[in-house]
């Protein structure tokens, strides 16, 4: 939260509609995403109740679990869901790889996992991450994008992935091969969603709230219907009126995965009881009627959210895309491609918990991505840069003086170190020796030499900067490689410091400080047997 965003919320409250806080869309948006709206049965870890999904706003497909507490039904559901989702994923894989998804992890490879502490962890590199030593994979031209209503729905898909990816396709508790495959893809998408800047799995409330400030609190923004009520109020209603209506679960069923308790108690329980009774009685026609009734009930809870999802998609699509959104989407595509390759090679499923080395590597990767995202967002979007200008970590101004031929003669060889003096009315809190960056000149560093108040003009500050890099190796700068006198410039502390990826020991080299190398994992029946009840 920043003052600029806080102010935007105040403006939104008064205006009766949400205010833009971004000038561009920082996430890639697929033209045909797969919208997935899961509903779960209350009271259990991961008991799917129904899901509405599809990539065509006019053709939603609903899968219902008529007896959500029945284990066998859950696996049937998972298989049905796998068909739809894997079918969608299939469309993005090259035609000469028909078995990448349809092929199962080869029967011989055991379903692996990493049980609790002190017990074995999986022996393979992190799926989806570049495999050390292997040639870098060319990312596929496009990748499937999954859209869910909110972060809880994303977490639910992740849990669903966890509950299915370790299942065996043979033996006593065999499931259909598509089930663990679905699990691994859902897990992959769920893990990828944690990476800053990733758009492979998007929660729409998060995506909308990143670009608009409503006149309510961020807690209330977690309700997709209320959030859209502010971003796109219906005619004649203010944002607040629309949001209040949206909070009524009868008018606007919750986007899930948690269902409205009153719906559960007054409608769902009855429908499920009717199905149970008809099944027990062996009454075919009654069963069909009872199932249709449950379908209708769940449809009433899902359909409004379906419409909201596509509305949200359309609203986001209207925004121009940020310059670096494609760089990040390319990484998403790379991750999708790598996971497909991993599955093709019969790689093991993701372990339950990270080993010491895997955890450290992942943390390093997340921090790196966070840094890149922060820099790219500010460079792509003047409203984001404005937040830094307000605190003084960035300033925009004019170059009032420039010595583009200045040389630094300390040291053995003279180096080209031009000086600029920038005049700005922004607050400046940077100190001498700080190194700044100019988005228009990537790769060029600007060291602060001096910050002084402009003597004849109150409210204006003069910043003297020493430039290095991005000017070639000669002792004169090619024209256009640096700002010139009279140019409007922006300088910010946000810099990509281009650190090389840190080195980590291998799994086998996990040091004694962290418990030593984890023992090799030997699969047991417990993992496959793990009840889902």
């Amino acid at each position: 939260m920043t003052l600029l965003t806080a102010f935007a919320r105040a403006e939104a409250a008064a205006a009766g509609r949400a205010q833009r806080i971004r000038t561009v869309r920082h996430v890639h948006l697929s033209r045909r995403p797969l919208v997935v709206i899961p509903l779960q049965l209350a009271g259990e870890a991961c008991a799917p109740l129904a899901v509405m999904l599809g990539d065509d706003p006019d053709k939603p497909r609903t899968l219902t679990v008529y007896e959500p507490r029945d284990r066998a039904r859950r696996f049937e559901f998972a298989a049905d869901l796998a068909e739809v989702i894997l079918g969608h994923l299939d469309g993005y894989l090259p035609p000469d790889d028909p078995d990448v998804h349809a092929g199962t992890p080869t029967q011989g490879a055991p379903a692996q996992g990493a049980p609790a502490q002190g017990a074995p962890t999986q022996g393979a590199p992190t799926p989806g991450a570049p495999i050390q030593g292997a040639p870098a994979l060319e990312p596929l031209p496009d990748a499937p994008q999954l859209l869910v209503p909110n972060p809880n729905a994303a977490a639910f898909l992740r849990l669903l992935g966890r509950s299915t990816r370790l299942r065996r396709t043979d033996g006593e508790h065999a499931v259909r091969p598509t089930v663990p495959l679905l699990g691994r893809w859902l897990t992959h998408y769920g893990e990828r969603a944690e990476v800053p800047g990733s758009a492979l799995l998007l929660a729409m409330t998060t995506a909308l709230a990143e670009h608009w400030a409503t006149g309510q609190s961020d807690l209330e923004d977690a309700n997709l219907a209320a959030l859209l009520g502010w971003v796109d109020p219906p005619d004649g209603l203010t944002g607040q009126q629309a949001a209040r209506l949206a909070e009524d679960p009868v008018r606007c069923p919750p986007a899930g995965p948690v269902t409205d308790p009153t719906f559960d108690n007054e409608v769902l329980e009855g429908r499920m009881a009717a199905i149970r009774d008809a099944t027990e009685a062996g009454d075919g026609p009654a069963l069909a009627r009872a199932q249709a009734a449950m379908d209708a009930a769940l449809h009433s809870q899902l359909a409004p959210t379906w419409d909201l999802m596509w509305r949200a998609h359309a609203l986001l699509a209207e925004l121009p895309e940020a310059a670096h959104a494609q760089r990040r989407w390319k990484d998403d595509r790379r991750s999708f491609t790598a996971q497909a390759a991993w599955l093709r090679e019969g790689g093991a499923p993701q372990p339950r918990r990270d080993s010491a080395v895997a955890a450290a590597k992942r943390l390093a990767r997340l921090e790196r991505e966070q840094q890149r995202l922060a820099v790219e967002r500010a460079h792509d979007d003047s409203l984001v840069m404005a937040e830094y200008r307000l605190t003084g970590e960035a300033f925009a101004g004019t170059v009032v003086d420039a010595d583009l031929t200045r040389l630094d003669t300390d040291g053995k060889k003279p180096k080209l170190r031009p000086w600029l003096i920038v005049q700005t009315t922004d607050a400046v809190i940077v100190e001498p020796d700080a190194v700044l960056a100019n988005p228009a000149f990537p790769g060029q560093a600007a060291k602060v030499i001096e910050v002084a108040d402009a003597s004849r003009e109150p409210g204006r500050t003069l910043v003297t900067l020493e430039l290095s890099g991005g000017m070639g190796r000669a002792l004169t700068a090619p024209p256009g490689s640096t700002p010139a006198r009279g140019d409007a410039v922006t300088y910010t502390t946000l810099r990509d410091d281009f650190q090389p990826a840190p080195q980590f020991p291998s799994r086998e080299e996990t040091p004694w400080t962290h418990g030593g190398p984890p023992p090799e994992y030997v699969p047991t029946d417990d993992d496959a047997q793990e009840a889902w009840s």
Partner: protein
Amino acid sequence: MTARQPGAGLQTGLDRLRGRALPKNHDARTISALAANPGCARRALMDAAGVDKQRVAAHVGFAAQFGQSRFAIVRGNAFEAQVKENGAAQLLILLRDLLDLDVSEVGYADFNDVGGNSSAELRHLHTRHVLTAPDQPGRTLLDHPLLRLRVGGRHAYLEPDLIALRLDGTFHVIEVKSFAVIDGQADPGKVAAAAIQSAVYVRALRDLVTEAGGDPAAVSHKTILVAPRDFSSQPTAASLDVRRQLGVLDRQLSRIASIETLLARYPGTLTFDLDPDAQGRPRRPAAELAAAIGQVAASYAPECLATCELCFLCRDEAGGTTGALGKPVREDLGGIEYIAQARSLARGQVPAPEQAEIAAQLLRAAQLRAQVLGEAV
């Protein structure tokens, strides 16, 4: 640590505030929720008096939705029953691993078998007697003991779904919950709620032991959480250290005990009575009730939407304040109470001296937004 006991005058005062309705019974869940917003006078008074906030809110037109799905309730009960069946066989196996316990010698005592229809006081006395009698077997699982806790001058009898383990003179509270522990991790909000509820039981057990002349330290601050493991209905057990939660609870109980000072600020005629008729329908004019509520200041924040039945009423009252936009937003707008005020300052209104900084920032924020949005079409 025992809270200061309020006098009889307080009890009459709170009864008057509540009106003719019976006080809402506290259980571990509601007691643990008392600390959700310590700065709110409205909530503090209502909770101390045992007012049914849901009915009050509904009568003034701001009914809140705090229902619970029966599926969750059924599942919770089924899981608990499963854990406790066969003399808590499953539980004992878990405890063997968690506490390194030789369970072959652990007995099981169910306090529900008091015999006949006893009052809460009698059941509590029986519990105390059995729990602290010197000739009891060293290792026993104790099911359905009835504990009590002083909350604002009344005894709250804690609903007996608790098990305690007496292990060689030390008591361990065991809390059975039905949210899952997956790969060793569970929803931190739910674990926090379980921890503070366990702390309520620890406090009640300690009070009981003290009343019987024993050492309250005999009740361990390490409690045990039993919950389903991964996606199955098999239980797993985890240890919880509730020292922090005990501190929070004690502070909150102490605040409630000193509610007299707060109550004294209001006229003796103030009441939230609904004046129900024979069928239980409120007769008190809604506007009058609303005015009464309005006399006691609330401390609304959006977090109330998840924890208090009055939330919609207080939110409505807070319309136009920066607080309604959320605590972080209010903090960022450093010291400005009202949205209208923030907007005026951003448009160049001359600020009061103490608002000079935030006014300058707001002015700048407005300028930057206008500049950027003016440039971008």
